[in-house]
């Protein structure tokens, strides 16, 4: 994996200004693993070093060869801690652990960085495009790839799907499934999707009920909440992504290292079948553009014969993988 030598992450200060954290990487040569500097505040620099070191505990791969130098461009106000997430992300970007596609702004703080948890943010009403830590945004670091938090009591997972409208607005949308155990009480097994209209809510509940029927487990066990990144869209090609997110949230599916990008629907989720959807070429092109290292692309089996030439190889070269699936579940 090639990592940059410098990375920048921004954070929005309480006065509305922008704070910039710059991370640079150089050979360690016997120095400390992380060095931080904040103009005129040595205590804060020490705190930043501590935050970054703690957050590194959640990474599987340790490399003692590099030193990362982090510097803040100005002194943040006294007890404002939203820079913490930006520092952690800058440290990951400069080592190639997190490779975003564009510039990143992030606000968030945590008391448990060693668990990868992000407790909250001071920023109210974050503008679009800002990674906002805490509930309703990014609750822990693994959520960047849609993975469930291994320590939380409510398990939530995301999967991405191509949103295709035939214009320049095409992008990947995400669906998030959160499950909370029903404590064997009188509660109904329920699926709610607060952002959606009743028709689509019923469709989602039907998909989840059918796929859990195929699974043989998960019925009458969970209270489920479904959220979409962009709640206004047409079509039902989100179905496959929804089912995968649900299976991952319930701990019943192998995990990818990156995101899951799926497209497909079905009239027979109760049999686990994945069926084709429209706009194959446009969606494949979109996926080829958006996929990043570690991502897992899942497409219907019927698409396999007509996949654009070189898509599989291009994805593999980028570190992503592709599978055409006829049926969900264990091999």
């Amino acid at each position, binding site marked *: 994996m090639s990592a940059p030598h410098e990375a920048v992450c921004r954070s929005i200060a309480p006065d509305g200004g922008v704070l910039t954290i710059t991370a640079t990487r150089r050979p360690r040569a*016997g*120095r*400390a693993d992380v*060095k931080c500097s904040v103009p005129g505040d040595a205590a804060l620099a020490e705190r930043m070093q501590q935050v970054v070191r703690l957050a590194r*505990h959640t990474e*599987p*791969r*340790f*490399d*003692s*060869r590099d030193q990362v130098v982090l510097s803040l461009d100005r002194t943040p106000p006294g007890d404002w801690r939203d820079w913490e997430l930006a520092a952690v992300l800058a440290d990951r970007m400069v080592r190639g652990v997190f490779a975003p596609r564009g510039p990143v702004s992030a606000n968030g703080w945590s*008391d448990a960085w*060693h668990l990868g948890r992000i407790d909250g943010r001071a920023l109210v009403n974050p503008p679009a495009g800002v990674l906002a830590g805490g509930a309703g945004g990014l609750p822990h670091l693994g959520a960047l790839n849609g*993975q*469930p938090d*291994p*320590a*939380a*009591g*409510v*398990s939530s997972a995301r999967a991405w799907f191509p949103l295709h409208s035939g214009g320049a607005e095409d992008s990947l949308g995400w669906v998030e499934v959160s*499950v*909370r*155990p*029903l*404590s064997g009480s009188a509660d109904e097994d329920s699926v709610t999707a607060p952002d959606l209209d009743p028709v689509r809510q019923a469709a989602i509940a039907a998909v989840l009920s059918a796929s859990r029927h195929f699974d*043989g*487990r998960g019925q009458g*066990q*969970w209270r489920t909440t479904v959220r979409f990144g962009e709640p206004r869209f047409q079509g039902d090609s989100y179905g496959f992504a929804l089912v*995968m997110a649900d*299976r*991952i949230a*319930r*701990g*019943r*599916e*192998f*995990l*990818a*290292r990156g995101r*899951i990008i799926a497209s497909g629907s079905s009239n027979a989720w109760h049999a686990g079948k994945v069926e084709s959807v429209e706009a194959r070429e446009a969606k494949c092109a979109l996926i080829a553009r958006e996929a990043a290292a*570690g991502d*897992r692309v*899942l497409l219907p089996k019927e698409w396999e014969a007509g996949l654009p030439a070189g898509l599989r190889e291009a994805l593999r070269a980028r570190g992503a*993988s592709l*599978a055409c*699936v006829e049926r*969900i579940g*264990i*091999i």
Partner: protein
Amino acid sequence: MFGSLLKNFSLHRPLRQPDFDAARLGVSAIALQAPAGSALPGGCAAVLVDRNGRSRRLAAGGKIAAHEGEVAWCVHPGPYSCELAPFAAAPEIGLRVSIAIDASDPRATHQRFDLFLASEGGAAVELNGFAAAMENALQRELAQGNLDLPPCTTLEEWNVFRAGFNQLMYTRFGVMVDDCVPVDLGAARDYAQVLEARLTQQPVEQQQVQAPAAITPQQAFVPACEDARALRRLFLELPCLMCAIRLAALPAGQEQFRQQQDLLRRLDLVSLSVGTMPALELRAPNEALAQDEQLRRARHSRCAAAALDEAWALLARIKNGGEAVLGTSFDEADRIVANLEYETAGRRLTVVATEEVAA
């Protein structure tokens, strides 16, 4: 130096268990330490390890004739069956694995399982503990992306995974994987109940937030045990690892040969450093070291042992992929050796140098 290492080790290995229960072999235990002179149970082999970690095997039947200073284990070849969860965050899907301990391989200079017994065996190798170690090794390889087991795994991907997994288990533990199938563990490990338990614990945690972070989870271990175990592993396994790396793949061309020689030379120095490691509890002869420094030293030893695990995993990948992998794995090897150097150097320090913190 070395004496202190052995002394520490014997501290944590209790005296010979008088209750050598051969009936457990092949069921819940893979290997048990056996008293010298006792009869070898039917179907079992004996592995004898001397003080320097050299091992030899006795075939089935007869008595365990141990020389002076040798420790004997009775090993049942299996087969054993266990269930592994490849992802900690997905407890309801797992692999059912059937493993067997191989008869000795005449081509190998050392038997990996015998080395495992010598360096990590302890008084008994329980099946549960062994399965946990296998699961740990598997999870780490998957998290680092060296093995892939993605959602909706296709048959080709499964075959690639199986080849890598089999080689990993053979190279790291010396066991043969006879069979491995994905299984639904939902009945045994109900995720809903796990989450339920977490949710009921949470209010308690929130009350404790006011107290300063007292004990982080990584401190919950006994430094002396952990340190002795890790150093014992490094001391015995590093020479075998170097030998295996030489044999695994021939470097193609002068440049690769030079790189390989350089890595082996650095590993040699790490090995020397481990063999002459100062005792955990001493700052200087007859001067005790502060408790928190001992903890720091033990943490370095443990990280060094983790790097050793990664080195075995890398060796498995080289053995699996042959010379094609060798060319691309030098950066990974360089990282692992650099980590070993860093951790062993940290283990030697008596205090963290102040300029390191500031630099």
